[in-house]
């Protein structure tokens, strides 16, 4: 009997606490798990606008987006950050965003503004590239592969680890780069030749980078890995012994990289449109933008934002990254992934 009373009390308490009004005005930002920002940057916004900013981390990029879509009738947050160009069409089709033509868009190059109606505004970008272990190639007197075709050559047999595009966004990005380069009719043949050459496929970035890649702390067996062009900078910044040079570098040949752009948007149904707009402006403004590289290891889209010294020194951007029309990705993504799975895994 006592137990039941206790439970009843607990449940009532839970329900009541959920209903009771909170003190200061709150602005809720839904993000994917990789989001980060400097504490002082967020407090500056809070103080300037007399608001408490709450972040709701909602899983990886795909999971966060699907949660935003499923809850669109009664949104969990005011602002949603973290959808990228491979998923953007899904977000736009579901109509989860309130359009907002931020004045700061003027500072952002047109190539990043993929949604002409401005439902989703670009915040940052990065190139998904192959990184190589410098020491391995020096020690083995092996030239670093320069093109996608090189990776299928016998001298690089068993040296490359990639992520499964069905479960990982770098994996999907790299698949799209190969589709761009070899065309929708040729990419599967290329992947079959990679498979014959012993490409290793794992499910997530963590496994690829920390278990399989030889230049990471996991010191695995593969000296070539699909990751970001900013990873070499992160290796220097988060080195366990101070380094003067990055142990890794990106392969930046034509179309070997895929450009990923991440977007922010105001969720339809927000009760704080004004504050939400201010926060979007703030994310596109110089202070927040200059904070992005060292927090999330992506590049800011605002051309006024300057890069930290570690980035200018150790991270290189691709000159000709693969890009796609949103509509092309939307129409083909699932088919490309399914065909890839059949060709490479089965």
């Amino acid at each position: 009997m006592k137990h039941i009373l206790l439970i009843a009390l607990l449940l009532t308490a839970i329900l009541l606490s959920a209903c009771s009004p909170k003190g200061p005005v709150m602005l809720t930002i839904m993000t994917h798990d990789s989001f980060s920002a400097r504490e002082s940057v967020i407090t500056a916004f809070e103080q300037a606008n007399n608001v408490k900013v709450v972040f709701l981390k909602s899983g990886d990029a795909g999971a966060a987006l699907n949660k935003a879509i499923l809850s669109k009738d009664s949104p969990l947050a005011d602002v949603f950050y973290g959808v990228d160009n491979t998923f953007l069409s899904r977000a736009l089709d579901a109509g989860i965003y309130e359009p907002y033509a931020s004045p700061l868009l003027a500072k952002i190059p047109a190539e990043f503004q993929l949604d002409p109606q401005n439902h989703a505004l670009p915040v940052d970008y990065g190139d998904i590239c192959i990184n190589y272990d410098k020491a391995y190639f020096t020690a083995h007197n092996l030239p670093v592969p320069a093109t996608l075709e090189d990776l299928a050559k016998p001298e690089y047999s068993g040296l490359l680890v990639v992520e499964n595009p069905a479960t990982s966004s770098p994996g999907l990005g790299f698949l799209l780069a190969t589709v761009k380069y070899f065309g929708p009719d040729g990419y599967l043949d290329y992947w079959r030749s990679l498979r014959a050459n012993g490409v290793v496929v794992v499910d997530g970035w963590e496994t690829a980078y920390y278990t399989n890649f030889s230049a990471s702390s996991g010191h695995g067996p593969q000296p070539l890995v699909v990751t970001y062009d900013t990873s070499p900078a992160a290796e220097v910044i988060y080195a366990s012994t101070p380094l003067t040079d990055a142990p890794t570098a990106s392969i930046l040949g034509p179309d070997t990289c895929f450009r990923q752009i991440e977007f922010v948007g105001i969720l339809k149904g927000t009760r704080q449109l004004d504050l939400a707009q201010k926060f979007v402006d703030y994310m596109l403004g110089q202070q927040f933008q200059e904070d992005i590289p060292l927090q999330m290891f992506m590049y800011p889209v605002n051309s006024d934002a300057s890069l930290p010294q570690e980035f200018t020194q150790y991270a290189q951007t691709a000159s000709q990254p693969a890009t796609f029309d949103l509509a092309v990705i939307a129409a083909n993504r699932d088919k490309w992934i399914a065909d890839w799975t059949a060709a490479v895994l089965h």
Partner: protein
Amino acid sequence: MSSWLRPVLPWLGVSIFLSLFFLYPLARILWLGLNTAALKILDHASLLLAFHSFLFTFYQAALSTLLTLVLGLPAAFLFVRYDFQGKSLLRVLTAIPFMLPTVVVAAGFNALLGPRGWVNLGLMDLFHLQSAPVSIIGTLGVILLAHVFYNTTIVIRLVGNALSHLDPCLEQAARTLGAAPPRVLTHVTLPLLRPSILAASILVFIFDFTSFGVILLLGGPGFSTLEVEIYKQAMQIFNLPLAGLLSLIQLLCTLAFSILYSRIVSRNAVTSAPRAAGTNLRKACTFRQKFFLGGMVLLLLGLFLLPLVSLPLRSLTRLEADRGQRGQVSYGITGDYYTELFINRSDSIFYVPPFEAIGNSLGYAAVTVILSLALGFPVASALARPRRLERLLDPILMLPLGASAVTLGLGFIVTFNRPPMALVTSPLLVPLAHTLIALPFVIRSLQPALASIPDRLRQAAASLGASPRRVWFAVDWPIVARATISAAVFAFTVSLGEFGATSLVVRPEYPTMPIAIARFLSQPGGMNYGQAMAMATVLMVVCGIGILLIERLRLPGAGEF
């Protein structure tokens, strides 16, 4: 109290809890995915995919369960029947994997068995090989090994519990009548243990059946269980109808196993006399006993200690600069990763000081233990004396284990995103979700102990004039106290290591240890990797100490039973 209310009363708490936080959200998301319009999307290829996922899921779960029993049963005998040095430490060691997040276990297995793991490096060095001789990562073998590693503790605890309650007179009688020890084992001991072996098997099976992280991180993309396929369909492809169908298959299978289980168990109820703890402990004397003891201890150490020890070791070593050279990795000892845990190097708003992460994890675990015991006790008592209602509701208690975490997570999103139950953003949802998973374990630990109490003890106490309350405290409680501790340990470990539900609802104000580990592993750099290993070591130590403390707990009135 009216007569119809009395049998319903113990079920009240659990029914409200499960309906509100399990059945309702699940029904909503399944309805969303499986309404008639959406079902038309399911074509031949989808159904084929569902069928193949089911076959593989069933196959690997059955194999894993079998292997877990093969190791777990002798281990349970070892812990209950033998007295040896370091026993309680070894026991805690076998329980630790249960609460480790998969990322950490995968790192441990890789450090040991991976292409550049100790085993391979050692063999390459010894036999002057050019390439790694052992390649188990990415095979069915490593999936089975990891499942055994994770779940052996379930068998040790549930079967061990029953074994320690077994009346020694039965075995002694058989021996007196001339039965050889193997015959006693197969004709007396094992049949008596059947309910607990079945209970353990079904829990292990369901855990393996819904396996997710092990398949993704160790098995790799070549293997896909139902849960992995649900994740891909729901989160990446957004094919909710197919995800819904797969979840339904998974759920119905769990229900079928649970019904099967409760049928078998209800036909095999055994009561036994409660005995003081430690009465049948013995030291290994004969050669055969010593061989068994030594062999089992070595086996358990090899399986559990080696992968676990690689983590603390890795958290204290630093790679020297000449990395990347195959086969030539030199190490240095460092405490940097631990000191770095206390520094918010990038001033991130999501930084969590280690003690705060420990505090948050322990807080959630405490609420989970209290909540699951409070909900589980009345139900376990009712189940110990099953009537029609009990037989009907019993299988439903197991369902939360078989539900897809991915699907339930989405169910929470569509259910708790608006008043009056706008709970998605509430930190309370974390222990509630943990309780869902812990509850079946708590009930399954308590129920056999409660059922083992012979009615004649209660009747004797009552006829001597004890009030019902006094009977409970003098008869029931001393016998179930040990099972309560076992149940509390389960709830505690489930909560500490749980990652899925936490990552689903957690807010930056209250990140747990598994969340902190995942954050470190999401960015490149030696310092991040080292800190992840350091945090994983902290998690292991905290959990180990927690288990030791709970097991040492002398509950008031529990005596030496």
